């Protein structure tokens, strides 16, 4: 019985994975052809951009080395073949392979994103449990705080936090250092706006859960208010927010572009921004592919997590994964 249930819940998994492979292929295709729209000669870009006095022989050599002299369709197939084997090509600007470069930057960004996600969850949870069931004023304060938090741009929050905590009070370093103290400001910068988004969803589903029949029956059994909240209502209330984690992760990676730049913290975001600024095409493609891969994995995982955490016997919430 339980086995059957699990199987039913995992039923769509194969299709999800096939969909993920399709999206990855499409992302590779979109980026390949988008990059061909860039005006100018790619061989010149590799040798240092237009204006750098390069000889015709040097250009021809680069074209041959990077396969730029082949027809577009062949280049495309080669690119797909290389991506399938995990080869992301060579950076134009940094004179190193993109694969190892991106992998070396991935860890820092993942740590930053996962810590921020956890902190955002904690803030949202505290705000939601505090502001629910305490009357209209508490609800309005909670909702107001969430709207303001969600509207805070990372770049402004970061500079304001640096001014207050690093320059005025001098308690935290203004640039990211290797120790835990250096992580505080970047994590808080990313977590506060996200907590605003998560909190809105959590408080609303918590309010709905507290009014549902199973909470009434728990109260009738003599459960304490705290027991009702923590043991019954919160599990239901957390579901939609768990489902949001895939999206949240994506927005954190996007926020990391700004935050890593401000706090001078090595990571995917800063690598991406630098590569866009100097038009280092292979690095941009590499970072975008890795982010898409991680993002798709996260959405499949959160989909799985919310299917397994759903207390209802047969998931009626599958529509949310569509």
């Amino acid at each position, binding site marked *: 019985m339980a086995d059957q249930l699990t199987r039913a819940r995992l039923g769509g998994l194969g299709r999800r994975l096939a969909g993920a492979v399709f*999206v990855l292929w499409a992302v590779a295709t979109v980026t390949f052809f988008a990059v061909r729209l860039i005006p100018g000669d790619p061989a010149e870009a590799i040798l240092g951009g237009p204006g750098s006095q390069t000889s015709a022989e040097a250009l021809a050599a680069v074209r041959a080395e990077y396969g730029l002299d082949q027809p577009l369709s062949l280049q495309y197939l080669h690119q797909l073949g290389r991506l399938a084997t995990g080869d992301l090509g060579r950076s134009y600007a940094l004179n190193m392979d993109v694969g190892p470069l991106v992998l070396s930057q991935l860890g820092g960004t993942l740590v930053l994103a996962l810590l921020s996600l956890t902190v955002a969850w904690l803030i949202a949870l505290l705000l939601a449990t505090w502001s629910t069931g305490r009357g209209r004023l508490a609800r309005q304060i909670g909702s107001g705080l969430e709207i303001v938090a969600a509207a805070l*741009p990372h770049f*402004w929050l970061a*500079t304001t936090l640096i001014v207050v905590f690093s320059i005025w009070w001098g308690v935290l370093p203004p640039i990211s250092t290797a120790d835990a103290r250096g992580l505080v400001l970047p994590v808080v910068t990313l977590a506060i706006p996200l907590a605003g988004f998560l909190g809105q969803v959590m408080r609303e589903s918590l309010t709905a859960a507290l009014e549902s029949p199973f909470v009434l029956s728990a109260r009738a059994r003599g459960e304490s208010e705290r027991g009702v909240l923590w043991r019954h209502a919160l599990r239901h209330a957390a579901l939609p927010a768990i*489902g949001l984690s*895939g999206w949240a992760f994506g927005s954190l990676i996007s926020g990391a572009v700004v935050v890593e730049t401000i706090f001078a913290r090595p990571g995917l975001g800063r690598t*991406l921004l630098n590569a*866009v600024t100097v038009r280092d095409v292979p690095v*941009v493609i590499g970072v975008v592919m890795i982010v898409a891969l991680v993002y798709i994995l996260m959405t499949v995982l959160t989909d799985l997590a919310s299917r397994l955490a759903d207390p209802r016997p047969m998931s009626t919430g599958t529509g949310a994964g569509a």
Partner: protein
Amino acid sequence: MSELEIQVAAGVDTAGGAKTAGRGRVSVVEVIAALLAALLITAAIAPGLLAPGDPLAIDPLAAFGAPSWTHWFGTDESGRDIYTRVVDGAHDSLLIGLTATVIGLGLGAILGVIAGTLGAAVDFTVNRFLEVLFAFPGLLLALLFILVFGPGPGSAIVAVGLSTAPGYARIIRAQLIRVRSSAFVEAATVQGLSRRRILTRHILPNTLAPLLVLGTLGVGQAIVWAAALSYLGLGAQPPAAEWGAMLSAGRTYITSAWWMSFFPGLFIVLTAVCATALGRSIERRMRHA
């Protein structure tokens, strides 16, 4: 991306507004938001009314002045008045946000309506296409666009518009499907109205009604994103009084002159909060109308 994720990203009130008391009354928040919006729009159209000075007038003797009675928001490295520049920047920032939102909503509406009306095969194709776009989260699609077309204010506007379009497309498609299966459309079908008439007179107007709400909510988000691109040096460039560019210029002097970055950023936040409050208020009123 799920329906909920898209709604949250777009700032739509996921509670459905059912719990909100006082549907007819005007709340304090609404009054403040409306006043703020009026001030911001005045600043954008006629900055001279709020700040008569010249935003580019330099005064080297007054450089790096802290906020005071003569310079409410302080002065920058050339002694230019930050308050005057922030008021003057409202025009660029609001225009960028508005244009990006119009582009995003326009593209989103076209894609959403195409997906919802041209049959299952088209719907399937558009949906897969949108899924691919969702794999470039947040600013990533905008950065890819800027990689191809180069940095600048125009690029930033189109980039932000493009990045927001997939979310809008999903919301509009979902709304269209909801409207299509509602009772009044069924009634029109039973009355024998032509498919075309039902589509243009009944389904489309009701599908596109939330555009006003989405647009109001979206302007705030678009201003934040465009300012982020300017801040990163990929949008409007520093001499311009656009808020993101001003913040970027203030970054160099952050240790000595915090007001150079604080006030332009504060106005981005105020605009975004104001847009959210107004958007939700319109949404609530439309639902109860």
